[in-house]
Each structure stands twice: as C-alpha cells, then as structure tokens.
C-alpha cells in the first residue's frame, strides 16, 4: 500500500516535470512569433466625398437576421404582450410609424418622434440624443422603457424560453440559451440588415446621370450650395454628427412649450453646451418618414425644409427652390426589401 502510494507520487513527479519543461519550450516558441492586431473593418467605405451610395450588399449572419426579424415583430417582448418593435418601426412604412410621437403599452404616448430603423446600422450613435453607442445598446432600450414596451428582461427571457421554436433558433444562431445579450444582438443584426440601397440618387451617384430629372439635379445642387450638405453628409446623408436645433434662430423659443425631449444631448451629458443638440438624422427614405424632427412637428417635407432653411441655415429661399429640394429629397428612397427582408 505504502509502496503503491509512493510509486504514484514519484510517477506524478516525473510526469509534472516533463509537462513543465515541455510547456516552457512551447511558450518560448510563441514569444518569437510576431503578432499583428487586425482592426474590425468599418461598415462604410472610406471616401473623401460628401456623399456616397449605400453598398448593394452587406455580409450578415442570416440565421441571426432571421431570428432578429421574428423577435422584432414579437409582442412577447412587451410587458403585456401588446406591443412589438414592429408596432412603431413599421418597416414597409419607412421603418417608422408616421405618428408624431411613439405609442407605447397601454396607449401611452411618448415624448419623441420615432426615428426610422432603416439604415440605422450606418448611424454613428442611436436615439435622437445619441444615448446608445451601438444598435445592441439601443435594441434593448425600448423593451424595458416603461413608456414604450414596459417589460423586464427575466420576464421576456422566460416568455421566449417557453417557446421551443425560439430555443431551437437561438441554439442554431448562438449555440446557446436565450439571453438578454443574444436577444439584443439578434435584434441589432436584423436592424443592420434593413439598409436601403439602390435609390435613384445612389444610381445617379454610381454614374447614371440620366436617372434624375432636371429639377431633382437642381435640388441636389441647392442641397450642396445652400449648405444642407454641411451636416447631412456621409453615406446616410446625416447620422454621423450632432447639431443644435435652432442654430440660426431660436427654434424652441418660436415653437414654445419646451419638453424634456427638447433638451437633446444635454439629457445624456448634462453639459450646458449640449442643450438642444440632436443627432443629425439621416435623410435616406426621408419621403417615407413623416412627420419630421424629434418633436414630429413638421407634417410634410416642404414644412420641414422650410424650417431647416430658416433655423439651421439662416436663409430664405424661393418657393421654386424649395420645390426642387423636396423633389431631390424624394430621390433618396431606396429599396427596403434588400437582404434583410427578402428572406
């Protein structure tokens, strides 16, 4: 008995010695390799021009996209099973709900206009005030917002876990259980799939100059020359910077009845300099997403453009130019049934 124990001990000793030496040799060899860190590539191609067309395709995990799509229209993500993401973000209607303000559970009216989710993947931050850095951060926000979907994560996860189809789909897409993180991820990826390429404007940018009418081309020139493009630039014609609402004139003073939502970025940073700063929204599909502005105050594009010219550009333009600009903005409507919705 004693002999056996000491034999085991000694063999253990020998084995561990051999193991130690071999691992050391292995470590040494790793140290001699050089390793470079590969950056994650950005979704948007680098371009020095003010605008560029949306890519025709994006590389996305289709299983997750499909799962996200299901979740997106599932009312179980709300506290009383009445509201889904799709209740406000009606994809065929431009990713928004054409209401002045969002309507949450129990018919609660929110304080802010629903931003479109179309092309939201290209935005530099989410929400009007940019309080979410990523779509993953954003995706869960409305779920637990008592005024929007009014649910809690344990509640949602339990409801989804009772559904065998979900269990299967999550296992397939994420190789694991249903978690908050996975739900957010699936929703975010689905949202990224909702990009709208091939608008007439994009076709124009790609070289098909004949696709736009004279008025529309003139509208684009005005867009450049009036300075709209100073803020509405980049792939999304916006969505990559903050700007103060009422740059050239007192928008809120003129409008009156200032609300919490009007504080804009201040709500996030609590920096006085950020008051009334909002994310410059994308103009893509702008024709579909009325009413406009964070307060949904402009019911149509003419009004919206007129307000913008006055308060942001500090100018006056002719009715004809205004018309051309609106015509131009109409060319920004892309094909919403791209990758994400096709399947």
């Amino acid at each position: 008995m004693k002999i056996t124990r000491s034999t085991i001990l000694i063999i253990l000793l020998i084995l561990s010695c051999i193991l130690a030496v071999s691992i050391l040799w292995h470590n040494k060899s790793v140290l001699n390799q050089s390793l470079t860190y590969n950056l994650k590539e950005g979704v948007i191609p680098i371009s020095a021009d003010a605008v560029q067309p949306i890519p025709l395709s994006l590389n996305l995990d289709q299983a997750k996209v499909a799962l996200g799509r299901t979740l997106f229209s599932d009312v179980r993500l709300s506290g009383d099973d009445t509201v889904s993401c799709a209740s406000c973000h009606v994809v065929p209607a431009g990713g928004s709900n054409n209401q002045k303000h969002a309507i949450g559970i129990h018919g609660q009216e929110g304080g802010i206009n629903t931003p479109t989710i179309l092309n939201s993947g290209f935005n530099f931050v989410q929400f009007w005030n940019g309080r979410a850095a990523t779509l993953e951060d954003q995706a869960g926000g409305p779920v637990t917002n008592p005024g929007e979907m009014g649910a809690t994560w344990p509640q949602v996860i339990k409801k989804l876990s009772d559904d065998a189809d979900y269990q299967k789909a999550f296992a397939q897409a994420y190789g694991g259980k249903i978690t908050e993180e996975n739900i957010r991820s699936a929703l975010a990826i689905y949202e990224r799939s909702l990009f709208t390429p091939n608008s007439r404007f994009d076709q124009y940018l790609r070289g098909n100059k004949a696709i736009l009418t004279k008025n529309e081309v003139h509208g684009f020139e005005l867009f450049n020359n009036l300075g709209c493009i100073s803020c509405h630039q980049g792939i999304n014609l916006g969505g990559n910077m903050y700007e103060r609402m009422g740059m050239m004139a007192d928008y809120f003073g003129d409008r009156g009845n200032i609300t919490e939502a009007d504080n804009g970025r201040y709500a996030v940073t609590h920096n006085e300099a950020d008051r009334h700063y909002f994310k410059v929204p994308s103009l893509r599909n702008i024709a579909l997403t009325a009413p406009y502005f964070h307060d949904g105050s402009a019911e149509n594009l003419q009004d919206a453009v007129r307000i913008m010219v006055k308060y942001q550009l500090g100018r006056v333009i002719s009715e004809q130019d205004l018309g051309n600009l609106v015509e131009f903005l109409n060319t920004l409507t892309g094909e919403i049934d791209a990758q994400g919705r096709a399947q």
Partner: protein
Amino acid sequence: MKQFGAKFKSLLGLSLLALLGFLYVKSSSVDAGLHQQVSAQLRQLRELDDRINEYVLQARYRLLKNYDPIVTAQKQFNDVITDLVAERPDLFATGQGELRQKFVQYLEERKRVAERIEMFKSQNAVLRNSERYLPIAVMSVLEGSDSLNEGDPFEQLIRDVLLHEMLMYQLLPSESGHQKIMDVLSELALSKESYPLIHQQQFETIILHSGILLAYKDACDQALHEIIQAPTIVLADEMYNLYSSNFQQAEHEANLYRFWLMVFALCGLIYGAYALIKMTQAQRELARSLRELEFQKFALDQHSIVSISDRAGIITYINHKFSEISQYPPSELIGQDHRILNSGFHPRVFFQDMWATIARGEVWQGEVRNRKKSGEFYWVDSTIVPFLDAEGKPERYVSIRTDITQRKTNDGLIKEASARLSLALEGSNLVMWDWNLSNNEVYLSEYWGDLLGLEHAATWTTATELNQLAHPDDQAMLQLRIIAVLKGEDSFYETEHRVRRVSGDWVWIQSHGKVVERDENGRALRMTGTNADITARKLTEAALQKAKESAEEVSRLKSDFLSNMSHEIRTPMNGIIGMTELALDTQLDEEQREYLTLVKSSAASLLGIINDILDFSKIEAGRLDVEVIEFSLEDLLRDTMKSLAHRAHQKNLELLLHIAPDVPERLMGDPGRIRQVLVNLVGNAVKFTERGEVEVSVKLLGEIADGVAEVQFSVRDTGIGIPLDKFKVIFESFSQADTSTTRNYGGTGLGLTISAQLVELMGGQIWPESSVGKGSTFFFNLKMPVTSISPYAAYQATGKVSGLPVLVVDDNKTNRFLLTEMLENWKMKPVAVASGKEALAELARAAEQGQPYSLALFDVQMPDMSGFELVEAVQRYAAGSAEAIMMLTSEGQRGDAQRCRELGISSYLLKPISQSELLDAIMTTLGEPERAQPTLVTRHTLRENRKNLNLLLAEDNAVNQTLALRLLEKLGHRVTLAKNGLEAVEQWSKGGFEAILMDVDMPKMNGYEATTEIRKLEAKIGQHIPIVAMTAHAMRGSREECLQAGMDGYISKPIDTEALASELDNIANGNFSSLAEHEPEESKALIVDFVKARTLMDNNKELFEEISRLFLIDGMKHLAEAQQAFSAGNSEQLKHHAHTIKGMVGVFAAERTTNAAAKVESLAGLAGTEQAMITLAKELKLLHEAVKSYQWT
C-alpha cells in the same frame, strides 16, 4: 526509524511537487501570446489616434467632406479599448498599477478629445455653411433685383472690406482684419434702419453669418488645436513603454522561475528515476525474502509437525501435518491444552521435567508418545523452543516434532523378518551363501549339509574347498563365471553345475549370486547368493531332448516319404493323363469320348489334390522355401490368366485383368508362388461363380518407398459369396465355408489354406471381403522390391497414340471400364458403347462430323449383334468411319482367325488382355514399323506354326516313353529314344538332334550326369544343344539342380501338353532359353539401342559409320580370339578379349552383348564360362547383324 524515513521521503516528494507547481504558475504568468497581442493593440491605439487627428484636419480644411471616416476610426478605437479591457482586465480594468492609472488617464483624455471632436464637427459644419453662404448673401446685396442702389457706400464696404477681409481672416486670422470686419459689421448694424426692409434683412443675414464666421472660425481652430495637441499620443507612448517594461520585468522574473523550474524538474526527474530503480530493487528483495521465508516455512511444514502455544500451554497455532497426524482439525486443537494428546504412557514427572526446562527458557528435546483422535498412538521426536520476551521470560513455545512411529515399530519388525527369512530358506530347499573375499571364508546355510549328505553341517568353509567339490568338467567354467562377476563384467552370477555328494554321486546345483560390497577401487569384498538343488529338473530335460530328437527324425522320414510318394504318384498319373489325351485325339465315338473326357478331368483333379496335399505337407514340414528373383509382373499375370481363361470361358464367365498403370513392371519376388496363389483364388472364383465375371486387379498401395512397392492383388467374383462368420474358417486346414461345399464343388479345401500360408511366407496378408449371393473379393498384399518402372513410359513419351480417337464396343460394363482406363492412360480418347447398334450410330455420327475413329475395338461375343456381324455392318454401311478394327474375344474359337483375315481385321486378341499386349497390338495395327505383326492368339494357332524338330528323348519308364513318343510325334517332331543317360550321351554324340528331352531319374546315368557329360563334350566343339528336363520331382530344388547341371528348360511331370509344346516351340524358334525368368537382363534387354547409340555419338553420322565399320571388322575377330583363349584354357587372355568386346559394344548401347561379355570376363575359367561364351557368341552375332543392316536415316 525506517518508517520515519519513508514519511520524510513522501513529505519531501510532496513538497517538491508543490514547489514545482508554484514555480510553474510563476513561470507561466507571462503569456507570450497575449503579450504580443496587447503590444499590437497598444500600438494600434496610437495609430488610430493619429488617423483620427488626420481625418479631423482634413475635415477642417475641406479635404474630407464627410465625417464617416472619423466615426469609423473612432468606432475602431473603441473596439480596441473594449478588447484590451476584456483581454487584460488585470491590467486595464481592475489593476492598481501605474499602467492602469495611465490607462484611466488616457481614457479620460480620449473622452475629452471625443467631446471636442463632436463639438468640432458641429461647429465646423456651421462654419462651412456660413463660409459658403456669406459670398452669396453679399452678392444678393450687390447684384440682382434686390441689390443696393448704385453708389451706395455699403456696396463697396461690404464687398471690398467685409468680404475681402473675412476671406483673408479665414485663411490668416489677424487682429487688424478682425477689427476691420467688426467696424463694417457695427456700421451695418447702425445704418440698416435707414434702408428698406428687404435690405435690412440682407444686412442682418450678412451680419449673422459674418459673426458666425468670426466666432466659429476661432472656435473650430481652437477645437482643432485642442484635439491635435491632446496629450493622448504621449500618453499612449508612455502606456506602451510602461507596459513593455512591465512585461520585460515579468518576463525576466518568469525566466528566473523557469530556470529554477527546469532545475527542480531535472532534479525531480533524476530523483524519480533513482527512486523508481531503488524501489524496484527493494521490492524484488522483499519478494525474494518473502519467498525464502515462505519456502522455509513450507519446508518445515512438509517435514515437521509444528505447533505454537502460549505461556500457559494453550495451543495458538498448528500446521497441517499436526492436524493430519493427530486427526484433530485445527478448530478442535486451537485454544486447547496439549494434554488432549496425552497417551498416558509417560509418567507425570516426565512432563513436569519438560515444563521446568522450557519455563527456564531452555530448549527441551525428547521422544513423546501421543494419542490420536481415533485412540491410536504415535511417537514423535519433539523439540520445544521457548520464545523469550524482553525480560527473558518465555512468551510462547514453538514445538517442532518429527513422526518416529515408524522407527519405533521397525525395531520389532526386524526381528520378525529375520526369523521369517530363515524359515523361507528351510522351506524352499535353498542354500544361502555369503562369501567374504577378504578372508576367502564362505558362510552356507544349514540345508547345504543336507544336500551333500554331511552328517554335521559345515556352515563355514572356504571358496577353495567349495570349488574342489564341483565336477571336474565344470570347474573351469565356474572359475570364469566368478571372475567375470568379481571384475564387474557380469552383474549377476548364475551357473548350473554338478557337486559331489559324500556318497560319491553327483547333484545338480543352480547357483545365483552377486557382489554386494566393493572397496573404493571397485574390488569385490563380499558376494552373496543361493544354491538350489535342480537334479530332478535336469533329468527331465534330458528325457525331453531325447524325445524331441526322435520326433524330428520321424518328421524327416515322413517328409522324405512324401517326396518319394509324390514321385511315385506322379509317374502313373502322367501315364493316365497323357494316354487319355492321346486317346482323345483318336477316332472315338461319342460315348467313348465322354468317358475318356471324364477320365481326364478326374485325373486332373486328382493331380490337383495331390499337389495340394504335397504343398500342404511341405508347408507343415516347414520345407517350403520362397525365392526372391526378378520377374515381370505383367507377364506373370498374363500367362496365369491365359491358363485360367479356358476354364472361365467354359462357364461363360468374363475373366478380366486390370493392372493399375502405376504398378511397376519388374519386381523381385517369387513368381511361381504368386502364380500359385492367383491360380488358386481365380480357380475358386470360377468354381463358385455361375454367372457374371471374375476380375483380377493389381494396384499399388501408397508410394514406392526405398525401392519397395506394396502391391495389392485382388480377385473378385460374382459368385455365391462367403458368410461373414466363415471368414476365419476358410483359411484353416481342411475346411470350406460349408462341408456341403466340398460335396457340391469338390476340392480338398486346402487351396485357401495353402494360399494363405504362401502369402504369409512371402510376408503378406490375405483376407476376403464378401457378401452372400453377391460375390467375394480376395485380397492379398505383398511388399516387393522394384527393379524397373512401368514399361509404358516409352510409349507415353513418344506421344504417338495420344489424342487418338478410339471406339470401344463391349456389352460387359467392367470390360468397357477397363479398356477405357487403359486407353486413357495412354492419352487416347476412347468412347465406349455397349452394343453394335450404338456403335454403328456413333461411327456414323463421327464420320458425318469428319472425325472418323482411328481405331475400333469390338468384342466378338455380344448379344443381338456379334463382333463379326458388326464388322460386316460397318464395312457395308459406314466404311471409312474407323481406320482400323481390332477384335477382342473371350475364347479363341477355331476359325476365328480365318474369319478375321477374311474380314481384313488386323488384330484378334484373346481376353483377358494385358496392357502391354493391347498396346503392342494397337501400335502394330496403326503401323508402328518396329513391332512385329501380333500373333493371332488362339489355342489352335499354336500347332499351325509349329516347326518340326529332330528330338532325342531320354526316358526309362515304359509308359512315359510311349506317352512322350506319341505326344511328340503328334506335335510333328521326330523322336529318337534313349532308355538311360548313358544311351542318351551315346545317341547325342551321333549328332543330328536339335534338342534333348531328358528325364532326371534314370538308371545307370541320371539326367543330371548325362547333361553334364554332354556339356563337357560340347565345350570342345563349341556347340550347344538345348536340353529340357522332365521330372516328377515337384519338390523345390529340382529346378535349380537342373539348371546347375547345364539344362536349358524344365517340364514337370505329369507332362502338360501345352507346356511341352510351348517349350519346344521356343527351341524351334531359336529361343531355347526358356529359363527367361532367371536371366531377365538378357532376354528383356535390347540387342542394340540405336537411338541411344546415336546420342552417345553426338548424332554424328560420319563418326557412327566409322565406329560401325571398325566394329564389323574387329568384333568377330575378338570373339574368335576369345574362343581360342577359352579352348587353350588361358583365362587371362579370355578376360582381356571379353573386356575389349565389352568396351567395343558399349557405344551401341547393346546391353545384352555388354552383359554377356561382362559375364565372360567375370567368370573367365570358372564354372559356367562355357555357357557364357555361347551366349556371348550368339549375342555378338545378333549385334553384328543389327549393325550391319542399320541404315542411318
């Protein structure tokens, strides 16, 4: 101490393990791979920092018209940070080190920068807007429908000062420029009231945007400055350096640990190996010791009875032997006192003494009688050893005992044995003696005195005196025997000799003895033994010997009588049979012929019975010898079958012969006896078979090993069969399967007995297989040396007959099978059919297909259509379908040959057919030139070919004279009579005879003498007349005597007409050596083998012709010289010439001549030279002729 050492060791091992673990953790705390990654990430952060700055700069100066790249780079930056924190939370998330502080500082700095960037983006956008719009706003004042009036002071002010200065300011800000702009703007603000509303608005716009341009330009530049000047890059560098130095330090530390880990690991390895070896050794040692102990205990347990008891004497352990001897199982003894075994034999004081001794701690020894469980007693030699404790007091007692019961009882037994021995000696008339060689004294037991008739037994005497008592004739023998035993050459001494009694008469003594003691040099010291009186036995033996000798004499006389009787019976039998045959050849009426035929057959069976009885008596007398000579098995079988065929065919039985192809042709054995057995068996088979067939088969059993073949003969019939229970009886003397058989079939019943005895004499076995009603088969096996292989090899090698299509037509199935097998054996392609009808169909089919048969074999006797009818049918309807036709018949009938010739049939063969016979016939039929036309074998052809001879007959018996004369004359020979040997020589000397028939037993001069005389005279004139012996001596030896006397042939009486005729035919044909069996080399060997000769001469025609020419000239010359030397009696010369001839003919592969010359050479002057010379002359002549006529082709 040892335990402590072991504990210490394992503690050491464990602590070393722990140390190794600690060192390992320490040394691997530096993850090189992760380090690489973190370094790369830190470098990447710095790079991204640069990139963002670059993009911001580009955006400020309008080189970059959108902010997407800035956003992307910032996102990437955040990703890297996230990764860093995720991968090294110890350094970047929770750590307290300098690096972590730097990192937090860096992140704060970056956050600040990010805020600046956002600010910059917003302000830059506004600035850009105003930059673009100010000129337009200015232009709207100066030109167009809403322009100022021409010459308005503001026109120039706005255009040249405000716009100009503003643009300048944007590029290169200056205090003066700023002042100028501000002046214009304030002037505009003051004066705008005086302008119409439209202009007021224009002015306000200009003032607004100019203000923005001034304010945002500075703000933008400020933001840009702050972004670019932010200490983030410096911090990143510092962070990187700090990280690197931290890592290097950790790496250095880890290296140190690694080094020690390596050192300890190596130490551990060495120690481990050492410990393992040590441990193995120790274990082996331990195992060995244990085994040793185990063995010692085992050994002790095997030998001794062991028990252990405690201080109080209570048994705590007993071994198996203890339990065995005491008969108590261990359970009944353990816990008990030793008193349980007390036999009560020893007094109390005995045990008290024992206890006292061992209680003192001393060893006690003694013999104790114990009692078994059964109550029996046993003795043990006991040793009790006390085990002392530390204080020297006994702790327990170990007792080891040995069973001595045997020894105790032996003492009594020895005395008994001694008494028993002396009683035995007295009772058995044995004298025991004991001889001490050192003083020559001999002790003899009491009975010795009685034996010699001494009044007082002299138990002590000396060896010398004893020897003098022995019979003088035996004394020398006794000395020799004793010396041999004393020297150790013989291990036992045993004699039978005579000893003188006191009364003077002799008594026979049988003496046994052996040396029982020797010194170290091997010298005998003591010898003991017994003497027994065997006088009575000796007398009986002498009487028996006498009786045996007289019985043997009687037996010899009886045998001689039998031999004489044989002669005496045969002579008249000769007369009866011969005369009857002669009478049958005369003109007789039917009645007379029938009577005489009955006389002949009765005489023949009487002769058979006599022969059987003679053979039997010879076997009984042990006077039948078996000879071993070379013979042709096939010839033997063929001849035997021929002689039996007649009998079989008379009963309409098919007689078949089947020799397996692998049976060797030439063997060593006794052909006469084999023939006798076969004749007997076939005779029986024919006798007991009413319809069907009799088949004789010969086959080889197994392989030929060491030149010896085991041949199985079998005789199968389709007769009445033998019941199983009679199998043994039939081979016994005077018995047949049923006594009624004798009555039904005749015969002595000795045939099988004799056959069995003969087979046994030849070293074989005989046995039957039979079923009643279906027939019997008799088998016998013989082992015989082989002298040559199968004779068919030559034919098979030529391959001339292979592939030949042959049609066999026979109604007998067995015959078809035999023929097919024979033909297939020669690679022919036989097709067998059963009737003439089928044969015709088959021939027609073959002809139609253009494949006619080369050969057709037709059986003559077939139902429906006979063989001859078939031939006619073939010739008529299917001519050309068979190239040649051969007829096979079971019986040669008069006129068959004639009919064959008429039908143009080339061959006519009598069944049973041997293979060689058939092959010969086929080869001849198919036009093989070397072979002579086969004789058409029928009994009737023999006489037709006969040549008339001038014969001399020497015969004394008048009846035989007449018989022989008539017989010979009838055969067409001229005969001169001589009444005895003398007359024969006389007649011969007159000349003119071609052969002599010599009776052996004749008055005045017997046949042997006459022959010797004639040969002597012949030698002088170089002639040789064939002499054929005629003798009634059927006893063995006659043949040899005849040949020794110089005779050439041998016929036994009663004269068999056939045998005589064939013997004379041989003479007529010049082949007077009828003793072919005895000289097979000559007769069977080739005169000349030209094929071989040509091969020997390299197939060179010139060489061959030259050598042939020399041989033709010199060959006969040497023969003449040899004959001269022989006549002159010069054996040396003769040898020389014979040798020369031998060498000369060797090149022609002339075996016969070579053998003849060799014989002359070897004999040269000895007896038989003359005969050899004659043979040589004859052979050489034949060879001469052959060489002369040979044509090289």
